[in-house]
């Protein structure tokens, strides 16, 4: 029932929001109410939730419910910020359309349905590109967005065929799996803006609607990552030279993304670019989880994805709020912002802590585990490097905010409601006649709705700050394993169960495998510790299945 309610809220909200464009009150109401209903419905999705559609069952789980709740909840918070800062018509419909597809993808028990639904959901990102006016001709990101969508769709469809394991007639299935791995990795890397595919992501503030990074760089990559990692250990845990090369390439992309993304966030001056690069850098951990090809990476990446969704959406909301309040997004011109908006500063600090935690916290251990599993020993230092770089750009923003404010910042609004402005409203209201001393008019009587509107408008800065602070607090709680995050991360989505139901294909005795002295590779050796993960079926890692048996794909008819 809760799953059906979630799907209904997302579908109706998306359709109404699309129909009501351009700006109409019903569009805003439909968007915010749809996100609210979706959030509430997602809170009730659990292991007992199921919805049968034809011969396919959509089954909920603790993690899928929490994942959807985090996504819808962060979308709701962003929607409230958008109400106060400027409502982009496309944001809520596209987010709801994506959540609709994401719900089907994360609850479907059929891999074909799940991956095709994810492909369909990925097309929703085009909505936030299309109606945005590019601020310069070279910033028209429509073709880049379409190519990204195409790559994601092609990769997911090909993977959907591959993971269902048709009865290939070739001597080896390995080339097919290598191709599927490359397709999935490439789709995930391009969609998340990983280096060297980062240029469209960095230009999103020029080519896309406001708040678009939350959808294009946070929610969609997180959803794709969740689905992709489900198959990482079971499907791609095979030994092959070609696969080792592909994994090494993915590792290189992930390392470059982690380091260069954080460096780029440090050297750029526009808040939107800093946030985009920050999101891109942290998305590198999802690539690492895919490269790990181990069951042990499933639990930490699930926890990381929860934190990633809420913290990065909160960061996007923070950027929107700061830009709106002070009228600029240039860091140099934002000197002293912290003195005028201390709540926003507190929220930024909480987001930073929630993103990388400290030793012993759940999110810190998750990041450390992903690096340990995915990278060889020489690169374990990357965890420290990424934290230091992240601290540097977060610290730069906070230090700039603590400096003496510029005149522009002093003249800007603060978080304190300007209640003194209300009694003098008639005097400050301009008239058509250029009379230097206009006569005071009697203040119009305001009803309850008028007073609420006045209160809303007088306190916009405070409202946005509070919403961002709520998002930061949620991210902090998730980062320390609260709100059921740690427990839910131990269980996957139904796709994990489906993936473990199809055992690892037999290692093909290729020339590389039969060589007595295998060549060194960056790919991690599967360890027995993989069984420590609490994945739904608790299957062993790639080396834990001595005589794997190739089975028919689930649901495939027997035509012999």
């Amino acid at each position, binding site marked *: 029932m809760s799953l059906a309610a979630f799907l209904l809220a997302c579908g109706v909200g998306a359709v109404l929001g699309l129909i009501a464009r*351009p700006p109409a009150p019903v569009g805003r109401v439909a968007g915010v109410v749809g996100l609210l209903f979706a959030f509430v419905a997602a809170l009730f999705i659990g292991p007992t939730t199921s919805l049968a559609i034809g*011969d*396919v069952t959509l089954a909920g789980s603790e993690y899928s419910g929490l994942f959807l709740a985090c996504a819808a909840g962060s979308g709701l918070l962003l929607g409230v910020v958008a*109400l106060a800062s400027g409502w*982009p018509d496309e944001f809520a419909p596209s987010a709801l*359309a994506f959540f609709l597809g994401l719900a089907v993808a994360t609850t479907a028990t*059929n891999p*074909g*349905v799940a991956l*095709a639904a994810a*492909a*369909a*959901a990925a*097309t929703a990102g*085009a*909505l936030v*590109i*299309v109606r945005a*006016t*590019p601020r310069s*001709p*070279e910033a*028209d990101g*429509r*073709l880049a967005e*379409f190519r990204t969508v*195409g790559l994601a*769709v*092609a990769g997911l*469809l*090909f993977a*959907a*065929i591959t993971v*269902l394991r*048709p*009865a*290939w*007639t070739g001597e080896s299935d390995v080339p097919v799996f290598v191709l599927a791995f490359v397709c999935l990795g490439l789709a995930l890397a391009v969609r998340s803006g990983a280096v060297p595919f980062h240029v469209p992501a960095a230009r999103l503030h020029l080519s896309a609607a*406001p708040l678009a990074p939350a959808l294009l760089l946070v929610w969609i990559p997180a959803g794709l990552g969740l689905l992709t990692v489900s198959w990482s250990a079971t499907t791609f845990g095979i030994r092959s030279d070609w696969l080792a090369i592909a994994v090494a390439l993915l590792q290189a992309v992930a390392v470059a993304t982690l380091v260069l993304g954080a460096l780029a966030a440090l050297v750029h001056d526009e808040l939107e670019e800093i946030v985009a690069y920050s999101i891109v850098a942290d998305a590198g951990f999802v690539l690492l989880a895919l490269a790990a090809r181990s069951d042990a990476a499933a639990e930490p990446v699930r926890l990381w994805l929860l934190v990633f969704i809420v913290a990065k959406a909160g960061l996007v909301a923070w950027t929107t709020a700061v*830009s709106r309040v002070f*009228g*600029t997004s*240039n860091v140099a011109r934002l000197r002293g912002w912290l003195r005028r908006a201390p709540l926003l500063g507190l929220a930024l600090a909480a987001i930073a802590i929630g993103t990388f935690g400290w030793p012993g916290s759940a999110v810190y251990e998750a990041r450390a585990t992903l690096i340990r599993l995915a990278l060889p020993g020489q690169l374990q230092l990357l965890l420290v490097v990424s934290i230091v770089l992240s601290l540097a750009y977060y610290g730069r923003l906070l230090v700039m905010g603590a400096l003496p404010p510029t005149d522009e910042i002093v003249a800007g609004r603060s978080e304190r409601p300007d209640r003194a*402005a209300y009694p003098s409203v*008639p005097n*400050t*209201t*301009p008239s*058509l*006649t250029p009379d230097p001393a*206009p006569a005071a*008019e009697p*203040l119009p009587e*305001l009803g309850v709705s*008028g007073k609420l509107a*006045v209160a809303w408008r*007088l306190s916009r800065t405070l409202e946005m700050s509070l919403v961002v602070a709520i998002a930061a607090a949620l991210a902090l709680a998730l980062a320390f394993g609260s709100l059921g995050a740690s427990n839910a991360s131990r269980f996957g989505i139904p796709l994990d169960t489906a993936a473990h139901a199809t055992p690892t294909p037999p290692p093909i005795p290729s020339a590389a495998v039969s060589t007595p002295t295998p060549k060194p590779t960056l790919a991690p050796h599967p360890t027995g510790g993989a069984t420590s993960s609490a994945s739904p079926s608790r299957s062993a890692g790639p080396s834990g299945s001595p005589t794997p048996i190739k089975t028919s794909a689930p649901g*495939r*008819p027997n*035509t012999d």
Partner: protein
Amino acid sequence: MIQLAVVASVAALLGGLVAVTARDSRLVVLGLLVAMVAAPLASSPAPSVLTIAFRVLGALLAAYLLWVAARDRSISSEGSGIGAAAEMAVAAAVFSVGWFAVPVKPLPGPLAAQAAGISLAVLAVVPLAGRNILRAGAGLAILAIGASLLFDAWVGPPSALQQVVLMALLVGVLGSTSLLISPIEEPAANLEPPAPAPAGMSAEIERGEATVPTVAAVVAAAAGEPDEDIGPKPDRKPAASVAQMPAAEAGETDRASRARERAKARAKARAAARLAAPEVSPTTAAMAPPTAPQEKAAGAATDAAPADSAVLPTARTSARRPGRSVRDGAPVRPLPLTTADDAALGDETASRPVTPAPSQSRRLRPREPRGPRGPRP
């Protein structure tokens, strides 16, 4: 007897071939529609009637979305990147390979679906590598159709929910394409930061009650900000419009550019013909009783024209409507000029003497741009 799956597979392939080779966007849409409708029929056994109906409805919706965007915006496909003959040869060759190759054995689905699926996947490569969004969208839709055919052939008939999801995918792909090929209608004038009018001014001007602030104006003034939710950012550079962008970057093809040039030339010729037509004296025109539609048009032109706008001095016979010319003794009223006419007239009208004639005025200023909304923050 020819099986339905074979016919459907071949139809899907032909539809895809038309979609990737056609220059007219309507043909592209038609080809995609045929491919989308035929693809679910290629399953063996055939899906239920309800499933087929759902896929057909989805195909119609997807095709409609693309057709709506492409029908009146002079957006045409460049056609095949390698030539129609080459596309057909490639399709035939790959179809043959798919027909005789056996990558999966036993094959759970029809062989024709495999051949058509591989062929469609190969056909989609060239459009996807191009820079034209319409062709790339058609290529991506064809790729999705090909993947669904391969799914039918290699994995077996998809479930009902998977059919629904595939339909949603096609609607999403073509809906995205239709939105992305739509030109952006916000001109540069609309995107520049507005004059620093004080809060509440616009509301008062519109109502004509400058001394009585509205509730909205009071609220906006109390907040110290304009009533617009979406305001400009001070440090933003003025945005550029699509009109200032190179045609290729605006998603426009060379063919569309040529079509636009031709339309401009036609408009200029029409305007020149109007100027060269015999003039009607104001007295003659005033004596003739106007018809109701003409009266309405003249009134609308008067209302729309600003007080200081330049107007043409005399009424002229429309060269496009000889039946209504003065030679036939019919009343003549000036036709309102279109924006294209205004642009085509250029300096010719600027050099003509102008006299105020509010009742028969023609706007020479470009029309107000129809921007859907103000600038974004």
